[in-house]
């Protein structure tokens, strides 16, 4: 069978099980878009390639499966870079496909030519420049295999236009790419880990995003109770244990509850599972867990000893290792240690004014959301103060319900990631999925993707939301049940907070002079928009807005000077936490 490279690429993606691709067309990728015209793959037309990248990330983070984003050459590719780098830092399986100028033009500074291969080299697990259409037979399955194997991550495929147009003879299609199982670590290593846990008197489990990725949350919870070990989580691991679990100590590090960081000071054994000792988690590394022997489980051998020397390390899949460990580990009992953890947790609760006095205090807002939203609600965040308030106060009870940009810390992540999450959930629930999304002649959705579905909530800030606000148009196209909550303090809040605390209140470039009317902005995009009024039962209004179907933007005025506390000064040891001096209770 003779087909074009672009049709071959389309068929390989279909065989891979790809149902949805987010992207934006342009000259160098038009042959592939022409191939998509005959496909059952649904294309989501984003309004910026970074938005397309984060829509794909939203799908991938919810499902754990590699998702695809698509862009043309030049600016299309460079606009994707942030989303690709973000996926790299947070170990998200992503396949980014870009068009490239024809090979004869490569290196000539042709229109919309950029060295996509060179640009993506340091931010991907692997990248390809396809030189011949027949190479796609190997490249595409391999890209998915690499993206999903071991520690997941992004893979980029750059396809020159002449390769897309070239005819290729295909007799047999390759099997779709599938993740390769991680090597099994030795019995001796698991046995030694069990022995170390039996010998520990003050053990702590330190869970990272790898626990979510490997699907080992329940095993980690079982292990915590078997080992009688309190559990701390990184931002990426929130949801691994429900906050009601008596051993759950919340997030560690820069914005942890004080008791959580103090507990780590006393631990004699720290078992890190799928965690990478990020500086936001450890604070000053030399003083992190000063009394603890470090034991490290990770699927990525390069993480072992990268930041902190481990006395014992196991490289492999956390699910497999924890299963084997639980077969060997007898029940441990550390009543005094558990009581110490519970005491620290009780003594260092988050500080917030009474809800009746200040219902729109960010901590009260996050707690309220936790009460009114079902436990399986997917919550995305942007980056900044609101992100940390959500991490501190929203009760994540299930894995993959928090989607947030942890490693790269990308403002603008939240809205497109929420769109991607809602798409994945609607796919999973089989809701109202036409073969392809098309706009009618008047630009209105024809047979649109609108579905009741599970509510997805994006918590954002007035700084972050403007970074990808154009994706409200994509959301309006799709009519997905995404609610965007904009915590509006007319500031780059975390910048202002650091200038207040560490730069003697020399505020520079933190305050916005012009702040949009976000409710009106939403309506301009064709989306329901409202602004909560602190004086008019705002939480009831919030609850009603969340219950109403379809997308919405809810602007929430918060106090301009509300800070995220506790806070460890950057570079300081985690024991040196700044505590809120006095409650902030007024509104903007």
């Amino acid at each position, binding site marked *: 069978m003779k087909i074009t490279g672009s049709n071959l690429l389309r068929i390989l993606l279909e065989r891979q099980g790809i149902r949805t691709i987010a992207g934006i067309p342009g000259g160098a990728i038009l042959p592939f878009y022409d191939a998509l015209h005959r496909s059952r793959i649904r294309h989501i037309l984003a309004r910026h390639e970074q938005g397309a990248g984060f829509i794909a990330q939203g799908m991938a983070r919810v499902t754990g499966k590699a998702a695809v984003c698509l862009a043309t050459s030049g600016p299309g590719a460079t606009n994707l870079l942030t989303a690709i780098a973000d996926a790299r830092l947070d170990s998200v399986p992503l396949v980014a496909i870009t068009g490239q100028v024809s090979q004869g033009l490569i290196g000539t500074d042709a229109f919309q030519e950029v060295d996509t291969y060179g640009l993506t080299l340091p931010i991907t*697990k*692997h990248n390809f420049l396809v030189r011949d259409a027949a190479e796609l037979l190997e490249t595409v399955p391999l890209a998915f295999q690499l993206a999903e194997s071991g520690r997941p991550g992004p893979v980029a495929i750059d396809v020159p236009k002449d390769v897309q147009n070239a005819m290729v003879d295909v007799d047999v299609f390759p099997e779709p790419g599938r993740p390769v199982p991680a090597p099994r670590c030795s019995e001796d290593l698991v046995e030694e880990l069990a022995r170390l846990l039996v010998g520990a008197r003050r053990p702590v489990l330190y869970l990272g995003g790898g626990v979510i990725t490997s699907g080992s949350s329940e095993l980690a919870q079982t292990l915590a109770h078997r080992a009688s070990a309190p559990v701390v989580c990184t931002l990426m691991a929130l949801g691994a244990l429900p906050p009601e679990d008596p051993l759950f100590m919340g997030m560690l590090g820069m914005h942890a509850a004080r008791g959580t960081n103090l507990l780590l000071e006393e631990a004699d054994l720290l078992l890190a599972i799928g965690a990478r000792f990020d500086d936001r988690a450890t604070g000053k590394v030399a003083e992190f867990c000063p009394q603890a022997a470090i034991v490290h489980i990770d699927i*990525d*051998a*390069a993480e*072992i*000893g*990268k930041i902190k020397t481990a006395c014992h390390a196991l490289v492999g899949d956390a699910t497999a290792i924890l299963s084997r460990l639980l077969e060997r580990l007898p029940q441990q009992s550390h009543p005094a240690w558990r009581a110490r953890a519970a005491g620290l947790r009780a003594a260092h609760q988050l500080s917030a004014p009474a809800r009746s006095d200040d219902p729109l205090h960010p901590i009260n807002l996050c707690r309220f959301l936790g009460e009114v939203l079902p436990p399986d609600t997917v919550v995305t965040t942007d980056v900044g103060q609101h992100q940390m308030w959500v991490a501190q106060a929203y009760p994540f009870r299930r894995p993959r319900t928090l989607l947030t940009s942890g490693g790269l810390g990308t403002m603008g992540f939240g809205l497109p990631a929420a769109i991607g999450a809602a798409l994945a959930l609607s796919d999973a629930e089989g809701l109202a999925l036409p073969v392809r999304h098309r706009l009618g002649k008047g630009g209105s959705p024809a047979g649109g993707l609108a579905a009741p579905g599970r509510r997805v909530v994006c918590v954002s800030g007035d700084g972050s939301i403007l970074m990808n606000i154009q994706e409200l148009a994509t959301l309006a196209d799709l009519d997905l049940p995404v609610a965007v909550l904009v915590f509006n303090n007319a500031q780059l809040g975390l910048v202002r907070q650091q200038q207040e605390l560490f730069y003697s209140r020399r505020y520079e470039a933190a305050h916005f002079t012009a702040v949009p009317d976000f409710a009106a902005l939403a309506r301009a995009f064709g989306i329901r928009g409202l602004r909560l009024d602190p004086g008019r039962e705002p939480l009831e209004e919030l609850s009603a807005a969340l219950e109403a179907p379809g997308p919405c933007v809810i602007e929430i005025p918060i106090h301009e000077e509300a800070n995220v506390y506790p806070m460890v000064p950057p570079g300081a040891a985690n024991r040196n936490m700044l505590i809120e001096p006095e409650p902030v209770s007024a509104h903007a």
Partner: protein
Amino acid sequence: MPVGDGATSCMLLLSSDEPRLEQVERQLAKLYDVITIRHRPDLTREFFSRLSPMPV
């Protein structure tokens, strides 16, 4: 430089013998297209000087 039929190649890197080198090697080793990493302490600076017209 190509090895055998050119399907694989060999790259020589002259690097400082710093503590972080071990981590650099681990990062390299996990790349899909890196087959193996070997130390070549037998290759001296003079060897690299002869490879390049530029002094190293």
